[in-house]
């Protein structure tokens, strides 16, 4: 099925072992659009992101995922990455034992390559300062910056952000927010999953609310902010 949408999930079903996590999700994202994927804990948001990035787990057992005409559903994780999917996972997954710079270099081993190191360092001067330092010795906020920078080191068609603010102190959250606003300005198609719904909605153009593995709402971000009933029901805010 062809589609005019830039990115599209069609009736996606995914399983974590024996648990049915993503239960027939369909939604679309336009080019350069930023979508906040919201929902209660356990609603299947992270699983959906991982499914889109074609992680080994959860296993995609039905449905199609298209990105810019490419069938992601037929790909393995590394193929999806080469097709332009960039995931910043929940706990950042900074690679231990490697320096900051090496963490960026490994991102550019496989094509297509995005920003060169110089440009990354320009945007993330803190990382430039610590390029020789072992990456896991960075603070939580700096590690999150590195994770974002590492994603940008690749040429992105779809940017997947999983809980970028999790576990960060408020000042750091603001700092990361600033970086993401810069990314927004560049115009990369983005899906963001975040507990902190308000922060995510500030960033997003559109909101998709997942509940029990299904789409419960798909509409403009402002509407979620204004609709108290919706917030109470699905987001408990």
């Amino acid at each position: 099925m062809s589609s005019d949408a830039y990115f599209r999930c069609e009736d996606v079903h995914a399983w974590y072992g024996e648990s049915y996590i993503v239960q027939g999700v369909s939604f679309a994202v336009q080019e350069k659009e930023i979508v906040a994927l919201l929902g209660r804990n356990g609603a299947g948001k992270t699983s959906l992101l991982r499914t889109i990035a074609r992680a080994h787990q959860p296993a995609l057992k039905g449905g199609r995922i298209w990105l810019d005409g490419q069938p992601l559903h037929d790909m393995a994780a590394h193929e999806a990455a080469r097709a332009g999917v960039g995931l910043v996972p929940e706990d950042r997954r900074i690679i231990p034992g490697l320096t900051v710079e090496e963490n960026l270099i490994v991102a550019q081993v496989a094509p297509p390559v995005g920003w060169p190191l110089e440009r990354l360092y320009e945007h993330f001067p803190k990382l430039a300062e610590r390029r020789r330092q072992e990456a896991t010795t960075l603070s939580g906020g700096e590690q999150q910056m590195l994770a974002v920078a590492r994603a940008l080191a690749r040429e992105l068609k779809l940017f997947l952000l999983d809980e970028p603010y999790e576990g960060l102190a408020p000042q750091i959250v603001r700092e990361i927010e600033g970086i993401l606003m810069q990314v927004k300005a560049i115009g990369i198609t983005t899906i963001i999953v975040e507990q902190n719904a308000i922060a995510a909605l500030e960033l997003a153009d559109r909101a998709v609310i997942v509940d029990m593995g299904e789409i419960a709402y798909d509409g403009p971000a402002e509407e979620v902010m204004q609709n108290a009933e919706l917030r109470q029901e699905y987001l408990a805010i």
Partner: protein
Amino acid sequence: MSGSLVNALTLQVITGLQLGAIYALIALGLTLIFGTLGVVNFAHGALYILASYAAVLVAGHTNFVLAVVLVPVFLFLVGIVMERGLIRFFYDRPHTDQILVTFGLAIVIQEALKWAFGANNIPFPLPPWGNGVVFLHEYLPFLEGFVVFPKWRLILVGVSLLVVVGLFLLLQFTTFGLTVRAGMREPDMMRFLGVDVTKRFAVVFGLGALIAGVAGVFGGPITQVSPEVGMAILVPSFLVVVIGGMGSLPGALVAALILGLALSFSAEYAAVQQIVVYLIAVVVLLVRPRGLMGKKGVFE
């Protein structure tokens, strides 16, 4: 110090180095495979002896130099086939399952070799350039009188050193090495960065087998070529890996050296020699729970 004591010590140290060299080569492959793939390959000793048999065949029909080239390549392929055909199905299963299946595979390889070549040793003649002894006193002026050591065993030490340096350079200074090191720690993340770690892991497994291949070619004439050698060499090599710390390459080297020297210096009290080896393992593991250079949380 009297001259004879210096001579004796020097010889014992060199013997220890040489004993350690072969353990080091096998342990290096074992620990590389464990460190990257998290797989405990109990068939590594069997790969070693497979290489020795292959080397005898190749060297017997052509010449030794060709064996040095062909056998490691052959083992590399064997490693790839083994990883793709069997090991990869065991990544998600517990370490104990990996040990069991590779142990079973080791038995199968050993028995198949016995079937094909018989249970007794088959001779592995040294190439002419490796034959004979080196007059150590000509190179080491502090030695007195006449001190010799087999040339081949010194070659083995040299080859081990080359392999170690080569592996270090490969892992530390190449992109392949960087991706492997990264893949060792965060395989999933590497996939999200577009790197097909699985393919590289197969190569790493092949590399481990290749090192066993080099060990088999150069160690064969020393450990002898018979089916049981694989299992006999695996146990101390595995001990070396554990003493050094699972997954630690420098640890394996240090442990191999310690074990080699311990064997060498306890030779005249052979009754306690075997006990000494295991005693070292016990003491190291009780004092340093994860081996000399093991990382926290590995394989527990």
